[in-house]
């Protein structure tokens, strides 16, 4: 394993050198490096339990770590296919390529970390290297918000890590965290600090603000990594804080709701809130990338709830949803990126009818959103179904309702870009665009194939998850052939796929047979002989769900709250500056006198 890190470390240097010579070359190299990483991590699947030390970093191969690392590497690997085509847009291509690999190193290190210090070091490395990549996109503000929100998580992790190390006297993760079975009060503090990091990173409400900003304005090639990959770091922290950290024991004495301790239930409520909030906000978005970012918020909620449940079904669902969402969201982002490469925009109201020019991209996107929305034949369905099963089995009605709401809402938001970007009439200026470059298409097809595969044969993944569950000592999910068994019944995805595939074929045949509709130009709009100044406002993709959005457009947003907080901090700083750092000797001497008086009065007692 050390070799992997050394290899990736060397290759990031090499990619820097190559990129200095020829940016595209370095970018192609990132594909090779991440592929090599993927293969070598895959080969580690049988060496669970092996520990290795590299310098003062200690690593251990665990099933869960392997599972997470594989997800991340898949996303990094496929996204890397897009890197070469964005080199000319970036001002620091060499830095981009090497930071791309550095963040990869950081994330993989995080999943394989054996001790808390290694965990934190890898975490921070991933955060700041990805922050430096995000800044190369459209917005510095976004990168900054990303960093600050991450820093809140980082610092609370650091606090938890150090307090744990201090109290337990060890830094080995399992040993240190299980210490808290005997110290529930400190345990609650550490749990809070830990889970805060997870929440910020997954983008759980109210820490979700960075997601739309960072995803929306990161370089197009990096958005899939952010959404599909880096967010999963938070999920890993959440996993650590309920599965490895004895959360259910620590909160064993607290009030329980349907068997779930209140603090954990509260976190689940936050998860549910982000499902609802993310869904509603996603429906509103005008920009395809921001829309997908909000959908990540919603899906993060599913993942969090699933992991927090720590049971047979929902937990498995949560872990599986990680993979499904990573694959689907990476594919969706990549599809949008491919469109943006050809058209130069991600605003839905400026696009339309791209299906006529980029059919493969359309297919990729279609399958990705089907998976994200959790519509049956795809992987997303299985995981969401499992989570829903778990929730309803425990009787957590509120959460189950939110989950159901999110599923239904996701139909709305995933259909919007599908319709606005790909369907409809093609704008004249895009008449001459071509299908995406074969390299990019390859990457997208890989992800699509995975989505399909996960939908048809979820047992491939569920086996690994069952192994994890056995390691944790909870009932494993039972997989029987292609069928997944639960207490409420079983689902065999192969059968489902057959049925849906049949239906799809039927519709396709009908579509072919039935007469075609008449095609009109996009801007062929009746305007009472007025000249149209702002044609995009008349685009059918604009204000797509206007009547629905109007229901909640007045709802307060969270971002102003943060802005106000930042402003308050500035004001406090200004106050301190004018009060204590005033450039007036009189005042300083006055302060000396005041301090002297205080000290004498205070000290005399």
């Amino acid at each position, binding site marked *: 394993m050390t070799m992997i890190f050394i290899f990736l470390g060397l290759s990031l240097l090499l990619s820097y050198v190559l990129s200095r010579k020829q940016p595209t070359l370095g970018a192609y190299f990132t594909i090779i490096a991440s592929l090599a990483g993927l293969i070598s991590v895959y080969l580690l699947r049988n060496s669970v339990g092996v520990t290795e030390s590299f310098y003062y970093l200690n690593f251990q191969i665990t099933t869960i770590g392997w599972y997470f690392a594989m997800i991340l590497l898949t996303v990094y690997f496929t996204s890397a296919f897009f890197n070469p085509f964005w080199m000319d847009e970036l001002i620091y291509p060499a830095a981009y390529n090497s930071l791309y690999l550095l963040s990869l190193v950081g994330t993989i290190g995080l999943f394989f970390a054996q001790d808390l210090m290694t965990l934190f070091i890898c975490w921070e490395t991933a955060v700041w290297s990805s922050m430096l990549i995000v800044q190369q996109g459209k917005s510095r503000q976004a990168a900054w918000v990303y960093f600050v929100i991450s820093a809140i998580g980082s610092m609370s992790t650091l606090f938890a890590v150090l307090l744990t190390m201090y109290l337990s006297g060890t830094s080995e993760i399992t040993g240190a965290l299980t210490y808290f079975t005997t110290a529930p009060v400190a345990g609650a503090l550490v749990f809070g600090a830990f889970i805060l990091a997870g929440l910020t990173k997954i983008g759980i409400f109210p820490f979700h603000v960075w997601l739309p900003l960072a995803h929306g304005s990161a370089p197009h090639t990096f958005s899939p990594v952010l959404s599909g990959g880096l967010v999963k770091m938070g999920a890993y922290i959440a996993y650590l804080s309920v599965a490895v950290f004895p959360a259910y024991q620590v909160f064993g004495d607290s009030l329980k709701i349907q068997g779930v301790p209140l603090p954990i239930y509260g976190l689940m409520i936050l998860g549910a809130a982000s499902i609802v909030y993310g869904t509603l906000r996603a429906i509103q978005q005008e920009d395809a990338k921001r829309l997908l970012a909000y959908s990540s918020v919603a899906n993060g909620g599913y993942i969090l709830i699933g992991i927090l449940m720590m049971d047979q079904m929902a937990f498995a669902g949560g872990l599986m949803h990680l993979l499904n969402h990573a694959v689907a969201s990476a594919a969706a982002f990549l599809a949008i990126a491919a469109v943006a490469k050809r058209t130069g925009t991600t605003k839905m109201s400026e696009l339309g009818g791209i299906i006529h020019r980029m059919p493969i991209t359309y297919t990729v996107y279609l399958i990705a959103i089907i998976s994200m929305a959790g519509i049956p034949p795809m992987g997303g369905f299985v995981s969401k179904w499992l989570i829903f099963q778990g929730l309803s089995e425990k009787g957590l009605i509120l959460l189950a309702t939110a989950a159901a709401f999110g599923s239904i809402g996701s139909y709305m938001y995933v259909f919007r870009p599908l319709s606005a970007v790909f369907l409809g009439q093609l704008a004249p200026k895009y008449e001459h665009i071509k299908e995406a470059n074969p390299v990019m298409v390859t990457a997208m097809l890989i992800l699509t194939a995975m989505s399909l595969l996960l939908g048809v044969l979820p047992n491939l993944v569920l086996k690994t998850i069952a192994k994890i569950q056995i390691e944790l000592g909870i009932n494993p999910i039972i997989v029987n052939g292609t069928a997944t068994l639960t207490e409420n019944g079983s689902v065999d995805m192969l059968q489902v796929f057959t049925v849906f595939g049949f239906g799809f074929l039927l519709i396709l045949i009908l579509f072919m047979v039935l007469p075609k509709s008449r095609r009109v130009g996009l801007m062929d709009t009746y305007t009472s002989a007025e000249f149209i100044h702002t044609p995009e406002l008349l685009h059918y993709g604009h204000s797509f769900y206007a009547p629905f959005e109007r229901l909640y457009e007045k709802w307060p947003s969270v971002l102003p709250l943060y802005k106000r907080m930042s402003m308050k901090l500035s004001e406090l700083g200004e106050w301190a500056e004018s009060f204590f750092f005033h450039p007036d000797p*009189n005042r300083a001497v*006055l302060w000396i*006198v*005041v301090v*002297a*008086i205080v000290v*004498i*009065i205070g000290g*005399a007692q």
Partner: protein
Amino acid sequence: MKKFISFLLILVLAFFLMTSLNSSLDFFNPPNSLDETRMSNAFIHKNASGGSDPVEFGKSTGLEDGSANIVTSVVVDYRSFDTLGEITVLFISALGVGLLLGAGTGAKQRSGFILKTAAKLISPLMMVTGIFIFTHGHLTPGGGFPGGSMMATAFLLNYFGSGSISTDLKSLKWMESLAGVFYIVIGLIGLFVAGSFLQNYLPTGTVGHLFSAGIIPIIYVLVGLKVGSEVSGIIADFSKSEVTS
């Protein structure tokens, strides 16, 4: 308002300071004799390095410190290193004044005939007094600082008298530099000869004699010269300076 608040604060501070200090200091009744624990007793009895020889003016010889003026023995012998630091402070502030005001070209000072004559008469006298003070620093009150400053005052009078800076500033610089260098060199000789920097390695002679106390008079002369030249430099810089905008 500001004055009132300041006044009030000072009153409060004064009250608490006084009540706090009252427990340890008796403002109106100084002690009758020096506390045994104070190290100054060793300076007075000249027995810091052991020894219990009686100290008598004009008689005792070969004491650890040969200066009749105990303050001088503290300043230039026991705690000579402080003095080195002190002349460094003066040196650096003279330098700073020079850097800040040195650009001035030199303003002519108008002065009356009487002042001129008086200055011309007094200034050599003061010069001599100054030299006397710092050469007798180990016997009588005074020493290098007032002596050197006296010299500088003479310089200042000379300036009033003649209306311009007559003494060559260059030579002042040399004097300043050399006096400092010699101070350190004498100290370093101590390091090589006797084992510690600024050690009094010359025979201390008889208490009360002009040629006694080892390196003390030498150092005090150097200090006097250095202080004199530095203060002169400061005066010259201030006098020359014009308001530059």
